């Protein structure tokens, strides 16, 4: 009786079956050795933060590629799951929930708008998942949030303002009128700048709060007192271009106060847009100069190439697609911060989340390098907030030109909270 493929023996069947089973199981075994680290990204893909969301995603993708090309985190590949929160606080907490519970992410990061941070952080605390925001608000360092929420990639409004106020008082004037959005982020500006300029012997002569969903601004400008020497403006959302244009129409060729703006008023907006000529000579705070500075660090060029941004801060594929350059570096730096803390803590999975936060809190000096293209930073583990240098740029010939840089020390202030004493 001939035996062959059509008439296998029992032993042959068992062996073939066993071999087949092993073959099928092998990738699972290998995969378990190098299961990817999953990072959840709470993204403002739609809603009023969409311009920021677009660039946060591109920057995070670029950093992800760089990290994976260099071997991932502790030898494990990394993947990012982007989830849109529509720049909405309620959706925000649902997104944190989904990324953590359904998608099994190791941690969540990336939120910019402070009202979304305020809406989402409590849920991250309940789920006991590290929540790394890229937001600028003072809410982390103020102690309003929890042990699971950290801001390692971008400085906060309080630090930014305390470095700007002395410069404004010394160079532009002492009687300041403020225009700011009427919610948490704008209130940080209002409170800290008012106090900081008083410390310099100046005063805020008027505070003009604008609802964040406003689409028309001319009606607010008559409230600017005639005695104003400096108009301090910070605006966010899709209507920022309308805001600066209407400001230009209002003042036009007439006499106007010196303008000092936070670049938020111009993020994703081309400074050479018709109607913005009046900004010539005015000053802006920038975290990271949009137009490549003459004395930019050695990693600046590499960072711009990786993200796809030219020397003017616009997309290399579309010169009209201007980036949110002073904010987006925070996603890059936050990813490298995660890498550093995971490797230091020997992180192996969600069971090590507490160990991971403790490793983050133990971090202090963050030197300049490709990990931190914006510049060297110092992390305060007690307040969960990072500190860094700031820049002032002037509009010259329709382009932002860096004219001043602060030190890290100028932005330091006394701790308002010690999160490390709180329970997990």
């Amino acid at each position, binding site marked *: 009786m001939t035996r062959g493929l059509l008439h296998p023996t029992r032993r042959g069947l068992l062996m073939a079956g066993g071999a087949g089973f092993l073959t099928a199981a092998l990738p699972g075994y290998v995969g378990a050795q190098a299961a990817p680290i999953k990072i959840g990204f709470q993204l403002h893909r739609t809603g009023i933060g969409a311009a920021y969301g677009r660039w946060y995603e591109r920057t995070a993708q670029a950093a992800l590629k760089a990290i994976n090309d260099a071997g991932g985190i502790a030898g494990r590949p990394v993947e990012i799951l982007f989830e849109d929160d529509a720049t909405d606080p309620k959706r925000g907490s649902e997104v944190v929930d989904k990324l953590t519970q359904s998608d099994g992410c190791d941690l969540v990061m990336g939120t910019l708008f402070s009202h979304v941070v305020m809406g989402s952080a409590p849920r991250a605390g309940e789920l006991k998942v590290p929540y790394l925001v890229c937001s600028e608000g003072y809410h982390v360092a103020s102690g309003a949030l929890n042990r699971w929420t950290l801001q390692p990639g971008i400085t906060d409004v309080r630090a930014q303002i305390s470095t700007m106020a002395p410069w404004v008082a010394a160079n532009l004037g002492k009687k300041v009128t403020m225009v700011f959005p009427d919610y948490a982020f704008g209130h940080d500006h209002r409170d800290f700048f008012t106090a900081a300029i008083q410390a310099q012997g100046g005063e805020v002569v008027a505070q003009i709060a604008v609802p964040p969903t406003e689409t028309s601004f001319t009606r607010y400008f008559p409230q600017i007192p005639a005695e104003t020497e400096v108009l301090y403006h910070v605006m966010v959302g899709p209507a920022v271009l309308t805001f600066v244009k209407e400001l230009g129409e209002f003042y036009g*060729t007439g006499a106007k106060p010196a303008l000092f703006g936070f670049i938020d008023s111009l993020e994703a907006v081309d400074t050479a847009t018709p109607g913005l000529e009046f900004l010539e000579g005015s000053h802006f705070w920038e975290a990271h100069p949009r137009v490549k500075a003459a004395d930019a660090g050695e990693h600046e060029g590499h960072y711009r190439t990786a993200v796809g941004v030219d020397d003017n801060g616009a997309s290399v594929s579309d010169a009209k697609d201007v980036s949110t350059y002073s904010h987006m570096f925070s996603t890059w730096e936050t990813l490298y911060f995660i890498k550093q803390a995971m490797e230091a803590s020997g992180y192996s999975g969600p069971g090590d989340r507490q160990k991971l936060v403790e490793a983050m809190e133990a971090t202090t000096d963050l030197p300049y390098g490709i990990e931190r293209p914006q510049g060297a930073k110092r992390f305060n583990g007690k307040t969960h907030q990072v500190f860094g240098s700031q820049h002032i740029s002037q509009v010259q010939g329709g382009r932002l030109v860096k004219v001043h840089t602060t030190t890290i020390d100028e932005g330091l202030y006394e701790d308002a909270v010690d999160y490390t004493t709180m329970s997990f």
Partner: protein
Amino acid sequence: MAFGPFLLLALMEGLVTAAILALAAAGLSLVFGVMRVVNVAHGEFYMLGAVLAWAVTTMFPGPPALAFLAAVIIAPLVVAALAAAADGLILKRLNYDPEATIVATIGLLYILQQAALSLYGPNANPVTAPFEWRIQLPWFGYSGYKLFVVAAAGLVLLALWQFMTRTKAGLVMRATQVDRSTAQAFGINVDRVYMGTFALGAGLAALAGVLIVPIQQAQYLMGHDPLLLSFIVVIIGGLGSLRGTLIAALIIGLSDGVISMFFTPTLAKILATLLVAMVLVFRPQGLFGAKA
């Protein structure tokens, strides 16, 4: 700033609001008056007008003025065609039942909004104004384009008035508004009148969107505010009354300009809403509406 110039600026800003509002609300009022359809998707037609204006001006190669002229013509026509299709495909199938059409237009609102999000994206994009002209007054500067918007809206509304009162099509629409079945008995093709009215209403909203977009930016969520304000205007003016709509738009626009400048924009919204409540309690048919 002294009181005089302050008031002048407030009135100028109020006029711009009133002009845009009058255009959008006239469309809403027309649709309700003739068809008895409460069009919740009206704000999305306004948004589509703005978004299409961006698309047309971006693709049009010529100077900004010509590109904008093309947008003024093309965008309202496209939106009107879309509205006519929506009428034939959705509203007509529901026999223009008042409750069913409210639900259907809510659905339409989301379809249009999400379609804009998918095809156009979440970003706010600027449209270049047809001309860059600033008026420098002794106290402040003002955009010449905003004054152009007021004039253009006035002309369009005048043309609409003439159309409704002087042309045969207007007569047919008014006849249908007064009594649908009698109009039908006299040989009027009511279905076509309805389709035309819905298209005209949407076209007016789209035109308002095109006119506003060089001042604001085109974004997929921009339909909310005009919808709410249009409803306020139409309720105060009287549903279906063009004259009432114009007067109410002026009241709401100017009071919004003045109150938000001297006090706060929030107070202006509170007072407008209060006025709506008062009108609903004491004169439910609106200032100029006929008694039901």
